[in-house]
């Protein structure tokens, strides 16, 4: 994708909401999540290490981020497909965005696509932890680039 074509976070969120609106029942939504899970931009195996594991998940989730031309590129993996699907949605929203855009994003779209239940801590699927970790990466890259 040409970098000029990158949509902003709100635009991508609206796109995802529209996609999920196509489904009437939860089963189709989950099937879509599963499909998304299989298309997650996979983390390079060399980054699939303990240090990149996100805690607080029933399944294991690895997340990696790199900073290029002022934008962040995320990759991830999980041993559970639904979790991977959730990771992919977040990556779609946050990839190629600036640290500031990520730090300031509210991620309210998660409610609107019917994944609100995943925000509950008892689900322990790590949606919240993933968001937190992505924001932490953004903050770290921002600090680093300010120092550079």
């Amino acid at each position, binding site marked *: 994708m040409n970098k000029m074509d990158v949509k902003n976070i709100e635009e991508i969120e609206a796109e995802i909401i529209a996609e999920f609106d196509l489904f009437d029942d*939860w*089963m189709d939504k*989950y*099937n879509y999540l*599963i499909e998304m899970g299989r298309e997650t931009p996979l983390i390079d195996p060399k980054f699939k290490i303990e240090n990149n594991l996100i805690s607080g998940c*029933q*399944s*294991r989730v690895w997340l990696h981020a790199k900073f290029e031309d002022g934008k962040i590129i995320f990759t991830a993996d999980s*041993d*559970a*497909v*639904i*979790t991977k699907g959730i990771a992919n949605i977040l990556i779609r929203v946050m990839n190629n965005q600036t640290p500031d855009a990520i730090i300031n994003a509210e991620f309210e779209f998660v409610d609107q696509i019917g994944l609100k239940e995943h925000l509950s801590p008892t689900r*322990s*699927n790590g949606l919240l932890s993933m968001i937190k970790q992505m924001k932490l990466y953004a903050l770290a890259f921002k600090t680093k680039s300010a120092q550079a």
Partner: protein
Amino acid sequence: MQDFDIQKIRGDFPILQRKIYDRPLVYLDNAATNQKPQAVIDAIVKYYSEDNANIHRGVHYLSQISTVAFENTRKNFQEYLNAAEHYEVVFTKGTTEAINLVAQAFGKKFIHEGDEIIVSALEHHSNLVPWQILCEEKKAKLKIVPVNDKGEFVFEEFEKLLNEKTKLVSVAHVSNALGSINPIKKIIDKAHEFDVPVMIDGAQGIPHFKIDVQDLDCDFYAFSGHKFYAPMGVGVLYGKEKWLNEMFPYQFGGEMVDQVSFEKTSFNVLPFKFEAGTPNVEAVLGLDAALTYVKEIGVEKIAKYENELLEYATAELLKIEGVRIIGTAKEKASVLSFLIGEIHPYDAGMIIDKLGIAVRTGHHCAQPILDHFNIPGTIRASFSMYNTKEEIDQLVKAIIQVKSMFE
């Protein structure tokens, strides 16, 4: 089964009328906590509507009737467990607190540097971590009895671990993760040959077995009310008088003291020296109602029915291609842990939940035993007296749906 009226029993549990995502609730997470019959709910409501007062303290009418009801529960459990004395029944907030109580109070007095404590590889974390911490503090050693690939306690290995350094054995009656029933009578008898006391974590035992502590000759037996149709926040520690008397209290405050001055405090007698502070009276009275309820039906009948469910579920699940049962001990109680092909238990659990079925997924607070099987977790269905074969059929359908979505 004769005189086991499943429809009547289901009618006694109001929550079973509930719908989850517009589907009738199928509750198969009984090893985590089971549901409460109306009689238990009524006992709590009655206590707060009519009888609430602090116990063991006032001379006023309400305090007296509440105290009597509370102490009657202790006597009822003495009788149910066949304890020699009513004061060998100590109320705690659950199994975890009971085990911690013994780890602290027994540990303080009887565990010293170089001593050994034995647990098994299939313990719940609450019967593992308190002993680990105690051993660290005391520079003692924790020894682990291994399990075989069926999830059975390896008795021969246990015998090898017992020696003159062993000061305590603490094992689960029934494994919460796999359902394996441990040979506790044999374990107790063997440990006693070395004069080693034995604690039984009975959290998963009490719902399925009639416990006779004198016949078992266990030194401690702990369980939680909430896995026995009673409210959360109450449990029982049975302990032999000879140990309880020797043990120093582990919490201090009101009720557990005898004489207090600024220089010196002397402690109350058993069981009160282990019951510091105002107890959870409502939960104890709910526990009493649960006991009455279980006794009316008969725990043997309940266990027989639950075994039928377990056998049925095992057979039906094994008909589904790719389903693996984790924990295939010869002796099992009402817990069925399984995996569906390569599907992550978390993925399966999400879909099964959406179908209105409550199962547990994950490591069941027993990580070491899952490490033994080299798996991240399982899906666990656990059965109670109010479950039916039709509900198991629902679970089977749900598994087939999971397969169609993930494979």
